């Protein structure tokens, strides 16, 4: 290496007199960061593979309903379920990836490079949230819509012909992708608060998987319906309403049943509160 002669070229070209810190630049930076890690590609690939694989598997194993062609509402509801059934698993992938997007920076020390480039700090956090949320939404949409398209030819066999022009049907598919993005952002916020990969993933999964179970058991043991109603406002229960077809009526969980838009608002509120806490801590703490 002929590096000893290099200093003479240190100022060979200026990066441009106009270059300065912008939010657009931060978004681009976060996109480069997200796209240049193997874990991202693995997680998103897994998300698409699980969704399509699961949908096809379910479509192939469903059997004819007795009594001929089911009503249109049931047909549409079943079609939505086939396309979104895998979300129970892909949401976990989104949670892991969302947590890693920020805790990976703390674990490796990258956060110091990030916060040196963006010393006001909050734009870096919000840029991360926007880029991760948008990319996860798009990937989720590709997976879910892809599954709907791939499974469509398999469903007429059991008397179901999905109507793609039905707004309720389309909203449920979009809602599924939105849920994946928002539950991942929730994990990102938890990661920004805890700053540790294992801790953040465990805490986020606990909130999504363990807390609802505990509430369910408690409400059964104590005969307390209000506990089941509280359970309806947990991130997972509320968010899952976003991809329910309004007429499916197949929910067996006790307690309140939120409308899809209410579920969206509840999950947005969870994200907002946790992000606010993350933002306050990011401003206060030493990096």
């Amino acid at each position: 290496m002929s590096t000893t002669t290099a200093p003479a070229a240190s100022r060979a070209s200026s990066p441009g007199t106009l270059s300065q810190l912008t939010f657009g630049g931060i978004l681009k930076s976060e996109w480069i960061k997200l796209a240049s890690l193997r874990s991202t590609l693995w997680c998103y690939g897994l998300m698409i593979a699980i969704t399509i694989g699961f949908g096809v598997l379910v479509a192939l194993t469903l059997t004819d309903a007795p009594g001929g062609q089911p009503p249109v509402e049931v047909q549409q509801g079943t079609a939505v379920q086939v396309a979104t059934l895998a979300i129970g698993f892909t949401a976990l992938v989104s949670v892991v990836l969302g947590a890693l997007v920020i805790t990976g920076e703390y674990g490796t020390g990258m956060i110091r490079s990030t916060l040196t480039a963006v010393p006001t700090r909050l734009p870096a956090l919000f840029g991360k949230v926007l880029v991760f949320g948008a990319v996860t939404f798009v990937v989720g949409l590709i997976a879910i819509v892809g599954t709907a398209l791939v499974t469509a030819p398999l469903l007429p066999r059991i008397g179901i012909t999905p109507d793609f022009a039905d707004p309720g049907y389309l909203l449920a598919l979009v809602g599924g992708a939105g849920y994946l993005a928002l539950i991942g952002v929730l994990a990102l916020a938890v990661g920004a608060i805890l700053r540790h990969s294992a801790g953040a993933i465990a805490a986020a999964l606990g909130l999504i998987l363990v807390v609802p179970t505990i509430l369910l058991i408690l409400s059964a043991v104590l005969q307390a319906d209000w506990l089941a109603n509280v359970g309806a406002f947990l991130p997972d229960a509320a968010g899952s309403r976003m991809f329910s077809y309004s007429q499916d009526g197949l929910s067996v969980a006790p307690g309140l049943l939120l409308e899809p838009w209410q579920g969206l608002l509840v999950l947005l509120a969870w994200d907002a509160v946790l992000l606010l806490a993350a933002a306050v801590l990011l401003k206060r703490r030493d990096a």
Partner: protein
Amino acid sequence: MIEAHGLSKHYGSRKAVDNVTFSVRPGMVTGFLGPNGAGKSTTMRMIVGLDRPTSGSVTVNGKPYSQHRAPLREVGVLLDAKAIHTGRSAVNHLLAVGATHGIGRKRVDEVIGLTGLDSVARKRVGGFSLGMGQRLGIAAALLGDPATLVLDEPVNGLDPEGVMWVRSLARHLAGEGRTIFLSSHLMSEMAQTADHIIVLGRGRVIADAPVAEIVALSGGKLVRVRTPDAARLAQLLASPELGTEVGVNPGADADEHDVLEVSGLGAARIGEIAASAGVVLHELTTVAGSLEEAYMTLTQDEVEYHAGGSQPAAEGAIR
């Protein structure tokens, strides 16, 4: 230009940095010296806003770092080689950092060439040696072509060629009128690189002076003499008519019986004395490494002052 005023950082009762005031001027290399735990890294992190001062303030080019519109163009910083995600390639790391300021591919390729990383630029950083990580950290610091460079232990883990490179880079950038602030454990390295030195001990500035003055604190320069007739030369140099300031000691290495270290006398005068007495000289060198002694003297005093117990040490009182 970096200016710190009454800068302090306390962790509980421990004062990592204790009411430090100094300025780092443009156009020269300023060395930042101190034993481990003296507060050098904490001070440098406060300069770029990663740590929040307990009290006091520090500005870069007249403003706190975070208030600049293009921070990376004001200050390039290498805090430690580990401030990089190990799963990303070097080029993607630099592209991501640069993107925040609209710094693109062209400049990234430039700093990669400048730091000699061409052959590994597309490899994942996790597999980098310490030296390669250090070069990548310096590359990131240079991205914004900044007027001020803050480098914490930049030669750490570098091979001799890399050390030479950092030294010439620092001198070159200072020659362009930039502010260069670098810390190092290698005191001899600092003697060859820095113009001005700030010594930190236990979170306090214990010296802030040009290199020459710091060296003078240790009693001036040493001359190293190698001769087969060491005993006779030592006798000649110890002669009272040369003055009482002259010190003659055997070489630092006990195996070298033919070496003398002479203080208080120039190399030319020693040569003349040897010639007039017919003593053969094999070597006559002025040693510049006495900065190390000055540093040891300075920091030892600082440690003794606190450990002595005769003073009501502030730390003890708080605990």
